[in-house]
Structures are given as structure tokens and as C-alpha cells.
């Protein structure tokens, strides 16, 4: 199967490339070349070789027995936390660095929130010997310090973004400005299924390896390729898109995306972009975003730096609008509780982002026969400070 936007990057009314002329040549070059490059046999071989021997794929699909007993159903965890660098983000950075090489680019820029995408980008840049600049909101630099230090050790330059709330959106703005100022030698390695076309599709295709594996792994373990539910957290939406991708055409599989409610979707301190969003344009794409009546983007809030974003990938806005996905939300406190539950029941410390997906479990009604896959998008090492605070 292939879930793709139209030639101009639209999923229904969402998507497109709302970019200033300064970025046109770069984005157009990508648009014209990306499919030929990534579908090339040599590219695919190298991509899969690196995913296998460097990233450590396939990531396990683990039957979580104690967690299953707690919820009276069958829960499988897709262990993206076990990937090299500790999250799903590396699937995309491996793909995009190979693409950047094909395009002859020498310098890589990226935005990061939790720092996982920044680390994954710095890692592939070290691997390929490319210059790496990571833009990261100053607020996030402080709350995700271990990842900042990892990026530095990997040789990346980390530039704190000082605009707005100094979080993920602001880092994205600075990365776009960097690209405007360095159009010829630089590839912007976007970290989620956001931004102008072709990024949402490009990132979705690189992350789709997650659901490709889930299908055969489930078949091996249960006899059927199809689960009843797939759950994933959703910031920009890349891990969710990866986990959903190969199930989109299978209507029987319920796809559940979990947004960060922050202090609560109605608290004014939230990052629930679908629940609280309306139609508009953010960072080059038409999608759902949190904005006021005057079209100014509202600063989001979540305890999780990776979900602290006021928009959502256009494909997710579309899938939700046609009823293909169900969107739930989890507050900061619910996520922390869910992280401790998984840790104590299964000995797995999840990233705060992934904990939001787990926090949806108590909100759902499962049959004892259901097969539920939860995407554990990353591990919790970077969040230890937050978790330790909660322990006290």
C-alpha cells in the first residue's frame, strides 16, 4: 500500500508548500527528486543496510504480559526505544542524510524539541562526515540537557533559539531562517511529518518501516498481521505516522493518536493541536494549529518537549478529518503516571512523549481478545530529571 499526498503535497485540503520564494528553489528541487532518489534500488539497499546493522532494526515487538494483565487485554510494545540513539527519530535521519548526500549537500541543519531528533541528526552527520547545526529552543536546552551534551560530543553545533516560548516551534522557525540564509549547500533535515511538501511524505515514508515490521512481527506472534488497535503519541506526528502507515487501508485496525494535553485541553496550557486547533498555515503547511481569532499562533505547553508544538502534520489533520484516526489526549500528570506504571510492570523507562501514548490505555475499553500495539517511540534517559522530581 502507499499513502501519499497529491503531486503538490495535499492530503485533501491539508498540506501543500506555503513557503516564501527564498525557499522555493530548495523545496522544488526536493519535490522533483525525492521519489526517484528514495525509490532507487541502491538507495533502498543502503537505507536498509544501515537500519539493520547501524540502528539495530528490526526493533522488537514485545508482548507486555504484566501490562496486558493490568488492562485485561493483549498489549504489544513496539520498541523504538531500543534503536541506536534511543528513539524512532533515527529512521528518518538515516533516510534524509542519504538523500542529502545524493543532492550533493555539505551542511545539515535541524530543529529539535526533546533533543532526540537533534541527537539522531548529529549522529548521522558524524557517520557521514557532514557539518551539523541543530537549532533548539532555549527552554528545551535547559530541560533536555543530556541530549544537548550528546549532540556536542557528536560534533554538532547547538544554537539556542531565543524567540517565542523558546521551544520546538521556535527552533523550527530558526532552522527555516537558517535555510533561507544558506540555500545552496545546506539540507534542512526536518524531524517530523511537518513543514512544506515533500517533507511530510518524505518523513512518513522513512518512518513507515515501523508499521511494516509490526505487520510481520504480529503475524509471527499471533498468526495475524492486523492488530485491533495501534496507539502512538503525536507531536508533529512522525512516530504515529510510521506506526499507522501500513494499516491505513485496513479499516478494521483502529488508529489512536494521543496528543499532549499539558495541564488540560481547556486550561490554556496545552499542546493538543487537533483538539484545540483550527485550519490554518504553520511552517509551510496547511493543517490544524492552535491560533487565536487574529491568526496568531498560540504558544503551546507540554511537560514533554517533543510534543510541545502548536501544529500537527497535515496527513494527521487529514486522517482525523475523514475519521480514520481517533485522537485522544493525556495531561502531564497522566503521562508521568503511565511512565511509572510501565517502568514498574515491565522494567522499561519510556520517554515522556511515549508515556502519553501509554496514558491513553486507562481511557479505553478493550476486549480481552483485543490485540493492542503501543508504539514506544523512545526511551526515558533524557527525562530522568523530570521523573526523579516526580518520585519525591
Amino acid at each position, binding site marked *: 500500500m502507499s499513502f501519499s499526498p497529491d503531486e503538490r503535497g495535499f492530503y485533501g485540503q491539508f498540506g501543500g508548500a506555503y*513557503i*516564501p*520564494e527564498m525557499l522555493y528553489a530548495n523545496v522544488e528541487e526536493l519535490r522533483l527528486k525525492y521519489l526517484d532518489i528514495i525509490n532507487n534500488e541502491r538507495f533502498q539497499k543502503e537505507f536498509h543496510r544501515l537500519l539493520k546493522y547501524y540502528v539495530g532494526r528490526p526493533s522488537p515487538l514485545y508482548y507486555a504480559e504484566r501490562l496486558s494483565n493490568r488492562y485485561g487485554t493483549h498489549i504489544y510494545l513496539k520498541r523504538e526505544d531500543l534503536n541506536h540513539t534511543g528513539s524512532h527519530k533515527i529512521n528518518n535521519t538515516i533516510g534524509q542524510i542519504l538523500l542529502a548526500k545524493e543532492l550533493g549537500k555539505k551542511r545539515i541543519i535541524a530543529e529539535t524539541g526533546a533533543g532526540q531528533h537533534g541527537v539522531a541528526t548529529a549522529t548521522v552527520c558524524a557517520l557521514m562526515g557532514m557539518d551539523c547545526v541543530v537549532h533548539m529552543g532555549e527552554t528545551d536546552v535547559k530541560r533536555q540537557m543530556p541530549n544537548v551534551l550528546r549532540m556536542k560530543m557528536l560534533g554538532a553545533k547547538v544554537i539556542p533559539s531565543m*524567540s517565542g516560548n523558546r521551544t520546538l516551534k521556535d527552533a523550527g522557525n530558526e532552522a527555516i*531562517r537558517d535555510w533561507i*540564509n544558506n540555500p545552496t549547500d545546506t539540507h534542512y533535515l526536518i524531524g517530523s511529518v511537518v513543514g512544506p511538501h515533500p517533507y511530510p511524505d518524505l518523513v512518513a515514508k522513512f518512518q513507515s518501516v515501523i508499521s511494516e515490521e509490526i505487520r510481520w512481527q504480529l503475524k509471527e506472534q499471533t498468526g495475524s498481521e492486523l492488530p485491533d488497535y495501534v496507539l502512538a503519541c503525536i507531536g508533529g506526528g512522525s512516530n504515529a505516522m510510521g506506526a499507522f502507515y501500513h494499516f491505513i487501508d485496513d479499516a478494521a485496525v483502529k488508529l489512536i493518536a494521543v496528543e499532549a494535553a499539558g495541564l488540560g485541553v481547556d486550561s490554556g496550557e496545552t499542546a493538543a493541536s487537533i483538539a484545540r486547533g483550527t485550519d490554518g*498555515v504553520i511552517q509551510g503547511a496547511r493543517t490544524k494549529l492552535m491560533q487565536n481569532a487574529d*491568526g496568531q499562533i498560540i504558544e503551546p505547553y507540554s511537560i514533554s518537549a517533543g510534543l510541545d508544538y502548536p501544529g500537527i502534520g497535515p496527513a494527521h489533520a487529514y486522517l482525523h478529518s475523514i475519521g480514520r484516526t481517533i485522537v485522544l489526549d493525556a495531561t502531564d500528570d497522566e503521562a508521568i503516571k503511565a511512565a511509572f506504571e510501565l517502568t514498574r510492570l515491565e522494567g522499561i523507562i519510556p520517554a515522556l512523549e511515549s508515556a502519553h501514548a501509554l496514558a491513553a490505555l486507562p481511557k479505553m475499553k478493550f476486549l480481552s481478545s483485543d490485540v493492542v500495539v503501543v508504539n514506544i517511540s523512545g526511551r526515558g534517559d533524557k527525562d530522568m530529571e523530570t521523573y526523579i522530581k516526580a518520585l519525591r
Partner: protein
Amino acid sequence: MNRIDNLFHQKKNNILSIYFTAGHPTLLSTADILTELEASGTDMIEIGMPFSDPLADGPVIQDSSAKALKNGMTIKGLFDQLTNIRQKVKTPLLLMGYINPVLQFGVEAFCKKCREVGVDGIILPDLPMDIYQESFKKYFEENDLRFIFLITPQTSDERILMIDSISNGFIYMVSSSSTTGAKGSIVSTQVAYFERVKALKLKNPLVIGFGISNRETFNRASSYANGAIIGSAFVKMLNETTDWKKGISDFVKQIN
């Protein structure tokens, strides 16, 4: 006749255009700044509609936009401020900003309002050409508004010619591959680009913007085009001066 067309009809060289952000330095300064700019001899004025996430702007205009929003500026508020502006100000006026606030206002309603208050042209850098053509062009044309396209050093000759063929008013020539912001000088790679575009003999007038900050850069840029636009340097002056009436007139005199 549309005031922009009229201007380029009457004046071919050294057209001085100034950008400022509505709502900055104070919420109510818009009309006074316009009046003072006209009195000082500015040929064309771009009024910035502040946006929370100005992707194509450097630090100075990011800052003026943030301050303007904090001051309470909105598109609706701006139209209210411009309601009687044509009784005082005859200079061609453009609104410049980002697409999202305009989408929320409603593109058709926005264009009608522009005509009502006497705006002559619109610059929305992140509204792509194809979507403009398919969905919005009719509203701009119905309301006699010029929709101004940008070109940059990365824009191919072929695309420049295409933009020229669908443009009216003028073409906004971004002086270098960069976000907005004052630069001290014009370098040889920019000159090569200016000459390349000049040689295309476009039907539309050309105005150079981004990085133009003083008499020297203004004159240099104007020698390759019909004129130039100064933004960040002017906004910075507004930030720094205590007597901005005098500041505006000194600023414009120093260029002209």
C-alpha cells in the same frame, strides 16, 4: 488609476519605499508614521501586519512584530486605524505580512477592506503562486489590488520571466539569499544577480529590498532597478529615537 501604477508611471528611478510594522513602536503610531513618511518625501510605503512567527524576517522585524502584537495590534485594528487615512495620505500603500492571519480574516473580506480604506497592493511571501492564481487572484483583481511577487538570487531566469508575465504593479527583488535585515554594503555576487535580472528586460518595474539600509546601499540598488525598499534600518531607528517625528524626517532626508 491604482496609486502604485501611477507612481511607476511618473517616476522611473530612485523610488524610495519604506517598511514599518503596524503597532510598533506604539499601537496607535501607524497614522502618524504614514503622515510623516509622506511629508518627508517617501514614494511608497509598506505597512507590516505583525505575525507571531515571521519566518522570512531577521531579528529587528521579529522584534517589532512581537512588540506590535503585545501592544494589541490585529488586522481588524489596523483597518480601523486606516479608515480615514486617504484624507491625509496620498502615497501608495501596501500591506505586507504572512498568509495565516489573512486566511483567518478571510481573503475576500480582507481584499474588500483593503479597497475600502485605500490600500493599493499586498505582499504575502508565503502564499504560493499557484494557490494565489487558483483561489485568490479574483479577489485581488476585483478590488484593484496589486499582488506583489518576490524573486531571489535562487529564482531561475525561466521562473522570473513567468513571474513577470503574471505580475502587475512591480516585482519585489530580494537583494540576497537572506532573511530581512540591514547590511552594510552590496557585494559582487549581488551585483551579478542584479545585472542578470536587468538583462531580462522585464515588463514590470523592479524594486530591490532586504539589506538596504542607507544612502549608499539605496543608491547602489536603485542603479539596477527602479528603486529600493528599506525596512529593518527604519524600524531600528524607530526603536532608538525618542523624537520619532524628527527621526523619520532625518532618516528619509539622509537617504534622498
